[in-house]
């Protein structure tokens, strides 16, 4: 308890300072500080429910030490859009029926975001590979794959205007 650390992050565009236990995972620190949209499905790196974007790359936040991510730029699903102004990926997931229980959804959406930033026109194989770390027990992935394709189209359209 005595060797607590003070660390800085930029989370969803906002500077924050947290006091953390150096042994804690980034997942724990985020959740303890109210970022409960980052979900805890296994804590062993096997499910992808805890995915965030750290310095431009998707990571399983349960496998990252919070201390090692200090000064990092972190995006959670809330960085993309909110209920009043959802991001095209969020809209695409909702409209395609890709959200059932929704527990895997923030992770799926962030993996999709990372994919679509690099590749606006991914084929089915690209999508499957980009999302292979995000387990979903509800959907059988059918509608998730459709959502990613739709999101790609929506983002392309948005760029053209």
């Amino acid at each position, binding site marked *: 308890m005595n060797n607590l650390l003070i660390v800085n992050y930029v989370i969803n565009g906002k500077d924050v300072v947290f006091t953390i236990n150096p042994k804690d995972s980034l997942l724990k620190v985020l959740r303890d500080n109210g970022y*409960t949209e980052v979900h805890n499905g*296994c804590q062993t790196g096997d*499910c992808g429910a805890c995915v965030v974007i750290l310095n431009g790359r998707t990571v399983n936040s349960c496998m990252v030490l919070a201390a090692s991510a200090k000064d990092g730029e972190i995006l959670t699903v809330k960085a*993309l859009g909110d209920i009043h102004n*959802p991001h095209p990926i969020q809209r695409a997931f909702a409209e395609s029926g890709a959200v059932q*229980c929704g*527990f895997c959804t923030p992770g799926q959406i962030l993996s999709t975001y990372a994919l679509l930033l690099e590749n606006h026109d991914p084929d089915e194989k690209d999508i499957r590979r980009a999302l292979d770390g995000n*387990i979903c*027990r509800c959907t059988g992935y059918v509608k998730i794959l459709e959502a990613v394709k739709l999101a790609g189209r929506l983002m392309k359209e948005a760029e053209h205007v």
Partner: protein
Amino acid sequence: MSEKFTNAGHSHSKIDSIALACGNEKYTDDFMTDTPLHIAFLYSDIANGIISSIDYKAAEQADGVKLILYHGNTPDTLHTTAGQGYPEPSPYDCRMFDKKVRFVGDRIAAVVADTYKQAEAALKLIKVEIEQLPALFDIEKAIDAGSPVIHSDDEYPAIPVTYKPEENIAAEIVTGFGDLEKGFKQADLIIDETYSMQYASHCATEPHAVSVHFDERGRLVIITATQVPYHVRRIVSIVCGIEIKNIRVIKPRVGGGFGGKQEVFLEQVAALAAWRLKRSIKIVLSRKEVFISARTRHAMRSRIKMGVQKDGTITALDVDDLMNAGAYAPHALTVLSNAGAKVLPLFNKIENLRFSGRSVYTNLPVGGAYRGYGATQGYFALNQHIDEAARYCGEDFCEYVKKRHIKSGETSRVFEALGEGKEGVRQFIKSCGLTECIDRGAKAIEWEKLRGKKLRNGNRIRGVGAAVAMQGSGIPEIDMASCHIKMNEDGSFNLNTGATDIGTGSDTILAQIAAEALKTDYSKMIVLSSDTDTTPFDTGAYASSTTYITGNAVKQCALKVYDLILKAASEMLGADKNELKVEDSKVSSRDGRTVEYGEICAFRLYTSGQLQIQASSSFVAHESPPPFTAQFADLEVDIETGEIILNRIAAAVDCGHPLNPLLAEGQVEGAVLNGISYALTEDYIFNSNGRMTNPDLGRYKIFNTVDTPEIITILADTYEDTGPYGAKSVGEIALNGPAPAIANAVYDAVGIRLRHTPFTPEKVWKLLNEQ
């Protein structure tokens, strides 16, 4: 069909989906109560034994520790953790903590501390001595005379059913009709084979969690990831001795259930700790704890003896099931009975039939409710037998089934003989789209082109196989659902229901049903579900009941409200009720005057005949119309490695008139994939001490995007007159198809019968090389 309706039958995204996609919605662990205490459990690593001493002095003194719970200081009320109708059909065979441990993962004690880390650290300071007893891991051995008895402490059934704990038998069923012996004599061929299915975890992505706090007036508020909020309230009350009036159970968003959260095993511990300490409490299980200590799919061994004549007639069917209940027996009777009740009516022309089954206590993890609920196990065996029978008489599987499956207007004697752990309810099938499912599924998978062709591609040989199944829609004459609807002065409505949306979309479906009856749009419904203070009773999300049972309650209730709206409108317009036309939230008279729903509500709230336009309804079903499915697998078998490469699976489902095709498809797709990975990879690997050696999602393999084959979903076009706007259930049925369809396809490709799941490459390779 959907043209007739403005809401029912239309695809809409779930009403909570955009909020979920934005990360706004809250699950149990997301609620921030003021500094809750945390609980860590001490689990037994011994499969069978008696606790001779517990020394927790050191733990009690440890940093942050507030309380230690164990058998010596907790109520010893015998109960079942099964969230079922009351009194439950599952035996009362467990205590919150017991002097005996009965499986690796059984709970010995709980430490309550300021932080989880402190609680976890204190676990190591508890010294437990356990007098080890011989353990039983094999179901056949468990029922041998002279085997050690797992339950010998006053356990009892809450309803009059066969329960023989002294023989390790948790449930027993024997039923049937006709004359088996005569039937077998008439047969030209007797197919007698034994099948088995393995343990499995639900793997809902959200692990079990509960968060308890006190409200301003000192009542206990239990926020919990449950499928059964009302059963939670009752069981907590009984086990902890806290009055119902002091308990409020809230179900927030739930990250999947699949039966796993139909079980009440954390809430009573959290509630008791909170009640004693007058503090908030939180429990969140780790994935490992879910695997080893939560509930599982019952492993089952099924022996089927079937007499067949050359023309394909089945002259006799004798089914003998032996089910592994595990260390306690929640759902042990009802899952077992469903392995017959939901399976055997499908081929209803069989005149001589017997179904016998036993659920057996062992020192392995506890079985429970799991999507498919025994039907999955039953259909795995039956479909392979049917495939063999069809081949024997030279008929195509599809044609064979179409000729012999139950049809509209028909009944089966099994419905009456076998229900949920007791006699069943006689019913005639009103809608059956199984033939349509078979035809459309076969077409989608190119059955004619591929069946029996054994197309070869290097080491791979291709085959197609099919399977059929039915399920039910709720539990007739037992389960009840209710709801309340009130109208607001902008024409919106509050729909409060105890039905429990755990990601299935039932909030949305129920809004669509209500809106249909109210002639408004589903977006006008504000749905609140599952809070025992504010929403009326519902048995919960299980047995494929919500669409049908709660759906009927909602429809009835909405029609009552609709009637009140018409009455008010007729007064406002000075026109007879019967002459009014209602469309799109507006009522108009023949002379063209119109009042809007909002105005009508305001008229009643503020102006004349003042009252709140509102109604409530309860519904109990008198039948349980089955949905049907036909599923087809297209795969290749690598004869060098034994690997099964699944190309496509087609699932055609008759769920009546699908109220929301998008969500119905989603139910089918999720269940199909669960069925596929159960058939191919999911398994509990136990060591010789009964310990699960793969309790993580790395080694317990469920499918990801790359593993998943193409899934083709087809919804048949039928209409169930007794259902709300033609609907039947869809939640469970699709899990019953993949394993037998894959097994039948493997036979089609390479001529081996896979009678034991999971179909690992090793198993396939071995059978191929025995040929």
